[in-house]
């Protein structure tokens, strides 16, 4: 018999005989959840217990057989308490890991609040509108910093280099600049 629990949103496998196994209370039959494994909806022989915790999912643990931590993770998603798909994959490419974690944490925190107040549909809608709208500015900031600045620097130095070598072109630029200055002063 394997045992699993949620710790900070992640499924962990427990070793038998942990002292907090007896902590909490048994749920009644009517309180069990329907869990989806792959395509099949099942009500598995899962006994659920709950520890005292401010988060409705934190502290739940499961005992049973015929499933693993990964399928339980899928099941937790179907229990409608966490965002459908994590948006962090969108941001990890553009942001430093710690900042990305903080941003995803903010998204999840607000998601849970909206879920509690307005239900899953509105929470999902808010989460994904924020995730999609956030990707643009983050990707643009990354592009400006990581791509545009070096490209502009290289192109600028190349133009200056070519200008200095071409005296005829340099004369034209000088004339245009002088004319522009004259107009500005005038």
């Amino acid at each position, binding site marked *: 018999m394997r045992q699993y629990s949620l710790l900070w949103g992640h499924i962990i496998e427990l070793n038998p005989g942990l002292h907090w196994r007896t902590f909490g209370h048994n749920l009644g039959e009517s309180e069990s959840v329907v869990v989806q494994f792959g395509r099949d909806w099942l009500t598995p022989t899962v006994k659920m217990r709950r520890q005292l915790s401010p*988060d409705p999912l934190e502290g739940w643990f499961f005992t049973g057989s015929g499933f693993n931590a990964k399928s339980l993770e899928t099941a937790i998603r179907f229990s409608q308490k966490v965002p459908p798909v994590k948006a962090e994959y969108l941001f990890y490419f553009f942001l430093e890991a710690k900042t990305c974690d903080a941003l995803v944490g903010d998204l999840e925190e607000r998601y849970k609040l909206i879920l509690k107040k307005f239900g899953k549909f509105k929470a999902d809608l808010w989460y994904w509108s*924020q995730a999609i709208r956030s990707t643009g500015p983050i990707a643009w900031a990354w592009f400006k910093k990581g791509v545009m600045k070096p490209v502009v620097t290289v192109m600028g130095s190349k133009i200056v280099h070519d200008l200095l070598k071409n005296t005829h072109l340099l004369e034209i630029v000088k004339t245009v600049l002088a004319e522009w200055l004259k107009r500005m002063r005038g």
Partner: protein
Amino acid sequence: MKGDYLGDLEQLTLTAVMLLGREAYGGSIHEKIEELAEGFRAVSLGSAYTTLERLEQKGYVKSWFSDPTPERGGRAKKYFEITASGEAAVKNSLKVANNMLREIGGVA
């Protein structure tokens, strides 16, 4: 001070950080920005973060990470605090806005 000009999103973000004080982290700053913008401007969480990063590079805010908490799936919060130069920049921007308001005789 010359050179302390802020864009409107920077102004909103810095004001939010200033108003929130010790409670200023990404999520709370984003909520405060939405509250201050009163629906006139939609700002995503990502925009708030990129603006905060820009402000940090300019030396107007400083940041640090909290310990991870279970409520956030084991993730830390990124807290921000306004610096003296940040406060000066906000005040200068508000002064300019005030001057414009005075010149046009206030708004309804």
